[in-house]
């Protein structure tokens, strides 16, 4: 069973968003890290990059595969979690905490409301498995 914290919003591409005022932290879900396997490398964007909704902002690599990561919301990147460069395994061990990937100043603070709730994401997962 996947871990799906109640206080976050989710996308069908298996990203989570945590809203804090007009900033959103973004990472990938427990379901995604489990599907990827051991994460060995993360390719991240830079502070200042501007992203459109659903744009690929980087990639996560496991031993066997490469997966792009998409931002569910549009905005400007204000922080990048550089620690993940040294400890990519945090994506597997703590996908919702230590493994936040970027923080974005949202173009439209209301955008996260349109995303899936924890319950809706859980329902979505049962339909794809």
């Amino acid at each position, binding site marked *: 069973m996947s871990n799906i914290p109640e206080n976050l919003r989710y996308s069908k591409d298996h990203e989570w968003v945590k809203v804090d005022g007009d900033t959103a932290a973004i990472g990938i879900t427990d379901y995604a890290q489990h599907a990827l*396997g*051991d994460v*060995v*490398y993360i*390719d991240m964007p830079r502070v200042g990059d501007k992203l459109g909704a659903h744009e690929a902002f980087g*990639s996560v*690599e*496991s*031993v*066997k595969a*490469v997966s792009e990561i998409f931002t569910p919301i549009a905005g400007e990147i204000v922080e990048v979690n550089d620690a993940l*460069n040294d400890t990519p395994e945090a994506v*597997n061990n703590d996908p919702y905490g230590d493994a936040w990937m970027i923080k974005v100043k949202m173009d439209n603070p209301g955008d996260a409301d349109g995303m899936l709730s924890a319950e809706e994401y859980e329902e979505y997962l049962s339909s794809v498995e």
Partner: protein
Amino acid sequence: MPDENLKKTPLNEEHRRLGGKMVDFGGWDMPVQYTAGVIAEHLGTRTASGLFDVSHMGEIWVEGPDAIPFVNRLTTNDVTKLVDGQAHYSALTNENGGVVDDLLVYRFDQDKLLLVVNAGTTDKDWDWITSHKGDDNMALTNASADYCQIAVQGPDAIAILQKLTDTSLDEIKYYHFTTGHVDGVDAIISRTGYTGEDGFEVYADADKAVQLWNKLLETGNYGSEGGILPAGLAARNTLRLESGMSLYGHELSDEITPFEAGLGWITKLPKGDFTGSDALTKQKDEGLKRKLIGFEMVDRGIARDDFDVYIGDEKVGYVTSGSPAPFLKKNIGLAFLPVEFANIGQEITIDVRGKRLAAVVVPTPFYKRQK
């Protein structure tokens, strides 16, 4: 959901029970990794022990007075040099010197050889070998479905397997084998493997696979700290790559000669004619145009199979196998380069999804176990 069209080894249910993530590997339903994950399975094999289901490999018996000359005419290594109970690594080559498959040749006695071939090429190899039978006084048997094959690899492998057999494993030299019993089951016990660690490959009747597999897990203390771990195809690949071993379809193919792939050491031209020996002799005399090298990434990033390799702005070659190396904690790979650049220290760049990342040619094997 299992795909009904995929072939299954006798251990398919066990893989699922152990939490194996199943994938289609050349038409076989195989575990790419289990719950521990590829890195734990890889490191576990190097520091303790790993258990591998390799039952999908093919087994072909060649029996009769002409067995040795027949196989010697079709393969690159010198079968006449084997003694009873010895095996060697070899290649089946076509008329152009390209590799039809790489394989192990086991000599049981003067009239009895066992060829162990890759899973994805078993049918192709069988057709190739049978089509070359002339008046030779020998019989060919494709016994692939009759056998299971389980590999126990790692520094703890010998201690674990010794608990299940009266055969003195210490006395089996590397690339030698014997027949005996494992957990009371008739078996061929071979000191071979594809991981770069010490270990054994056990061949037995397919219907004994589940018994042997579970007994090895139990004897190896699966579930305990430092206990044996079942290891899937992902770990099998990272282990062989770190050890600089070739994988058919990547470093070897119908269009690649053993010389190009660095397998001159199993290509014994002085032994006499074999399929492709004329082409290989010509290639040796004229010199190679391209050569397989090992590289290590310098820039952050991972080179993957089939990525293009550049020197300056010129595309000069391609990656045959690229991956993270879990034990060495580097990103490594094998690639073909024009022979003039195939030197240790040569700087190259690799196109990784649009970005040119720096790498450097290094010696292989990347990893060698402490004896």
